[in-house]
């Protein structure tokens, strides 16, 4: 029996994300989402002869921020190039992008596991138009072109092939998305897309084009990893080529044979001039960076004495961190807020496979709940119940829910007579307790809590029970 050699994997990602500018990269057309095709176009993004591009400075500002947040060197002088290839979604049959000198290069990102992923470069480019396939891909004998997308600003982030597994690739995507969310540089409601490069045992790489979303990236890479392993096992050599991923079937298929970058015949775009950023500009850009996830985690540990785990969970998800900040701003207890968010809120979201984009959570309403918890006015069980209800889209806030269903701990309930009733109806447990079984006391108090729907103070119940049974 021969020992199978462990398979080593190299994965590199090229991630495309839309920069959140108000106008397109080289013209003043709006970038606002619209359902009316070709309503946000002009002679420049349509590529009419005679029209000329003018660079959107905001896109440069956002691109610089991305570079800084990814620990890159920002090039003080950079320029744009034409990448020429013929395709119907290209208004000019060349794409304005960056080639020799991108806005940023040589950076890195540290994953929660401590793994360092090097960033080769980040560059700015314009998006081609959208091809619309009536009734779905391949279902009609023509396509339509929607130029609303033509000219939208993209940032492309290219990693070195440092990722060692499909799971790590997904982890990287998560961390990257969080960083970009903190920066507030992305266009809202758009998914990041990735071209995924993967090779095993130092062989040739294949590139899976245009994979949309994190889960799909992991899935595509997992499939491709298994496929390459099988090929090698069958004695085949992996040739460098490009593949497509079908999100429905989870399978990658060959798209085209080896294609090197330089076939695009890059030239400097002579319609545009060199962009020069002075020292002041870069200083101001650095100063304008918000608190980033890593800094935030450190601060939470220092300021509130949180455990590293809690601090990382809170800072590792932009929306969660933002909620936490708002709640603390509104004088809610930091400790209880953190617990509510990292335990209750996340577990409800995870249970229902929801993301923050799917739900509407108002900080003020969570603060009300935190205050109730702090005043010991609500049982743990009812906290959970109110959150489940809240996340499911109930129009009532947690506090309203608790009040409406009489689930708040009440001082006016006649605890004595309820306990008497419970003691009467559970004679066996009383006997067991008196015989020395302490668990029976918990059972009895549990019955009381159930009878009162958790609206009495459990501490008080225990006290009275102990006294009555002694």
């Amino acid at each position: 029996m021969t020992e199978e050699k462990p398979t080593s994997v190299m994965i590199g990602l090229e991630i495309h994300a839309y920069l959140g500018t108000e106008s397109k990269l080289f013209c003043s057309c709006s970038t606002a989402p619209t359902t009316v095709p070709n309503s946000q176009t002009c002679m420049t993004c349509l590529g009419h002869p005679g029209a000329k591009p003018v660079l959107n400075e905001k896109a440069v500002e956002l691109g610089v921020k991305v570079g800084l947040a990814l620990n890159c060197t920002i090039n003080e002088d950079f320029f744009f190039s034409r990448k020429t290839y013929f395709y119907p979604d290209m208004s000019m049959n060349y794409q304005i992008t960056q080639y020799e000198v991108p806005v940023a290069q040589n950076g890195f990102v540290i994953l929660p596991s401590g793994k360092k992923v090097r960033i080769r470069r980040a560059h700015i480019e314009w998006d081609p138009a959208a091809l619309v396939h009536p009734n779905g891909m391949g279902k009609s004998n023509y396509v339509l072109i929607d130029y609303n997308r033509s000219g939208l600003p993209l940032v492309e982030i290219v990693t070195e092939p440092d990722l060692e597994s499909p799971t790590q690739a997904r982890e990287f995507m998560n961390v990257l998305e969080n960083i970009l969310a903190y920066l507030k540089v992305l266009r809202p409601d758009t998914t990041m897309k990735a071209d995924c490069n993967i090779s095993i045992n130092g062989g040739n790489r294949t590139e899976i084009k245009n994979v949309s979303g994190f889960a799909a990236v992991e899935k595509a890479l997992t499939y491709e990893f298994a496929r390459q392993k099988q090929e090698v096992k069958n004695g085949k050599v992996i040739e460098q080529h490009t593949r497509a991923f079908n999100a429905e079937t989870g399978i990658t298929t060959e798209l085209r044979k080896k294609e090197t970058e330089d076939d695009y015949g890059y030239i400097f775009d002579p319609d545009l001039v060199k962009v020069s950023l002075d020292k002041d500009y870069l200083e101001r850009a650095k100063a304008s960076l918000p608190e980033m996830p890593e800094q935030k985690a450190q601060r939470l540990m220092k300021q509130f004495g949180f455990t590293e785990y809690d601090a990382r969970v809170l800072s590792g998800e932009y929306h969660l961190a933002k909620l936490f900040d708002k709640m603390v701003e509104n004088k809610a207890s930091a400790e209880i807020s953190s617990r509510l968010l990292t335990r209750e809120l996340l577990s409800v979201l995870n249970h229902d496979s929801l993301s923050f984009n799917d739900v509407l959570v108002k900080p003020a309403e969570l603060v009300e709940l935190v205050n109730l918890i702090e005043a010991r006015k609500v049982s743990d069980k009812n906290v959970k119940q109110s959150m489940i209800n809240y996340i499911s889209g109930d129009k009532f806030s947690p506090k309203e829910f608790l009040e409406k269903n009489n689930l708040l701990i009440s001082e006016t309930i006649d605890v004595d007579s309820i306990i008497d009733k419970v003691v009467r109806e559970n004679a066996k447990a009383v006997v067991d307790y008196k015989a020395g079984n302490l668990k029976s006391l918990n059972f009895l108090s549990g019955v009381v809590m159930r009878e009162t729907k958790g609206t009495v103070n459990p501490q008080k119940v225990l006290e009275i029970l102990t006294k009555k049974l002694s």
Partner: protein
Amino acid sequence: MKREETISFFVEEARKDFSVVDKNLAAVIQEIKTIDSKKLNYVEEFDVKDVLRQFEELKKSFAAKDSKYYGKLFGVPITVKDAICVKGIESKAGSKILKGYKPLFDATVIERVRAEGAIILAKTTQDEFGFGTFATHTEKVPKNPFDNSRSCGGSSGGAAGFTAYTTNYHLAIGESTGGSIACPASFCGCVGLTPTYGLVSRFGLIDYANSLDKIGAIAKNAEDAALLLEVIAGYDEKDSTSLNQGFTKEEATLKRIGVVKDFVDGCDSEVKKIFYSKINELKKFYEIEEVSLPLNVKYALSAYYVIATCEASTNLAKLSGLRYGVQGSVEGKHFDDYFSEIRSQEFSEEAKRRIILGTFARMSGYRDAYYLKAMRVRTKLINEFNEAFKRYDLLLFPTMPVVAPKFEDIEKLSPMQNFAMDLCTVPANLAGLPHISVNSGFSNSLPVGLMAIAPHLQEKRLYSFAKVMQE
């Protein structure tokens, strides 16, 4: 030069009496009809209704005494090289593939001349996309007014032909990439003024080679050419390469002038003779010495054709019969086949030659050796000029090595001989330097142009020099 012959004089008269505009315009329209019937081919597109509409508007301006009435070009008919976009008027840069393309916008230069009260009269013929030295690479080949069996020069051939032909008040907007204003100005005996790269907005110009393209003026005299430049020059936020500089007609003091011996040496003996006799006259006014530009003589043409074709081959990629210009039937065809079909049918041989050359020179494996090297050479050539300008206020040489050639002789030229005709005009264009071609005499009744180059943004030196030449 008589003051009565200038556009400024015409504009003053027009402000006093609108019938001056009426008479001039009617006469020019009549000329267009004659040009058409004689097949002189200066005019690519002429929409009489559009011209009359503009005329009616000017009439109102005359009555209202509005800003157009006070404009520097009030009532002046202007012809426009076909490559420059005029809103609603077919603008196809002399190419079949753009047949039917009516821009949705005016080029910035068009907006500017309109704002000064000009009338956009017609589009003038040119080599397809500016690809040529004789305006023969197009369907409508303009004929030299001095001898109809000869070329007007190119690529702004129609502009110079029309300017030389008309006996009325008129200005022509031309465009130069490698000499397309100076060359036809020389062959047609006009003044051709090409500004510093970036002084005039390229917004609305159908590109040949964006880092070289310059819109400029062709006129009967230096005064008029400078007036037109004054109007069209200046910063434009719609063109990223536009300079934050304008031009005003001002005299400059010129002392020392260099004659570029290397360029003169490459010219026909007849051209040399006329050039040197003019130089002798000029010695009364200036200190004139010989100067050598060895790098430019040796490398400018090669660097120019590499850069220009690289840029052109990307510019022309958009012309694929998809959304404007010629369209074919797409039924049942893969887009690659459709694009190839349209491009094969509609581009001329010369356009195909330049697309292939340019695509080759920027391909992987050749890009470093051709495209990037040419870009570096360009910087060296600019430096050589800058060095020369430390010593000389202007540089002079003949605009073209020959007089306007006969069409039958042009046909015999190989592509390389054809490119070599641009020896004198290319260096200044590659360096983005302002230059002017002024007539310096006649050889067997054919005009011979003299070229002056000035340092960047020193157009006023050219203006001053050209005025001396014309006196």
